């Protein structure tokens, strides 16, 4: 659907909510390690897709386990959030935002601000 601006969009095409693919994550706000909450397994799939949880699994549990806490901390680090390891409101709000489908962490190594270090190494070698 392409429109020059919003006023030209037929109202029937404009959903009046921000219900997107990840809307169910709202319910996870406040969750922390040690809890078991329905819906956490879907968040684990999301974090795996974007590189924060390494090993793929078809049946993630709803347990807020150590692996999830570590993934949430990595996510918070990448997005300049407090690294609480908990699903606090700022973290959930960021997760809900529309985004690019490319992973933030690829092969478990390149984080979102590793470029400078890589280019410095390259630069040093060039010298």
């Amino acid at each position, binding site marked *: 659907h392409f429109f020059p601006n919003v006023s030209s969009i037929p109202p029937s095409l404009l959903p009046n909510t921000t219900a*997107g*693919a*990840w809307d169910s994550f709202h319910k996870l706000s406040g969750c922390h390690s040690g809890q078991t909450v329905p819906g956490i397994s879907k968040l684990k799939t999301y974090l795996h897709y974007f590189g924060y949880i390494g090993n793929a699994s078809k049946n993630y549990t709803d347990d807020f386990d150590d692996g999830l806490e570590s993934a949430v901390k990595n996510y918070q680090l990448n997005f300049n959030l407090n690294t609480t390891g908990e699903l606090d409101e700022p973290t959930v709000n960021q997760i809900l935002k*529309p*985004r690019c*489908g490319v992973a933030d962490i690829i092969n478990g190594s*390149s984080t979102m601000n590793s470029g400078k270090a890589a280019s410095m190494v*390259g630069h040093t070698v060039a010298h």
Partner: protein
Amino acid sequence: YSFFPGMPRWSSRRRDLTYAFDPRNQLSDDVKRVFGNAFTRWSEWTPLTFTESSNYDTADLKIGFYGGNHGDGEDFDGVLGTLAHAFAPPRGLLHLDSDETWIIDDVFASGSPSAMDLESVAVHEIGHLLGLGHSSIEEAVMFPTISSGVRKVELARDDVEGIQVLYGSNPDSNSTVGPTFGGRETSGAH
């Protein structure tokens, strides 16, 4: 800024890249113009040039709009959520979610919770086509998330530093003087 593992980039013999649109999408000239603008954002800062081609099969960079499962294992998910994705050099594929409501001119009148600015997403994905990964710098075009109603099309300093590690600066302009670094334009509603 960050790179894909192994820092893939287009080789020094490939500075003049071509791009084409999937003919099945039958895109209007207005939509194509948005991508032309988006490519210019990167050619301003690098020795790269981008030329539209009508031959989809032979173009270096292929752009298409698809919904749901479109055969590359990276399914789209309907309104919002994942908006688009692109592949590292030299694969040259850029896919956008056809289920989104794309605004091609004036996102500022938005106020809509689901209208996305097409040029902002195009500029970001072209960064991936050229070899950039995501950035933690929120002002950067390569920051992974963008809210509806937000337009972010000019490269920030972080984007320019990253792309110039891969390709160097635009020989026609001094890298310290050139287009202004971008900022984020948001609608009043936000």
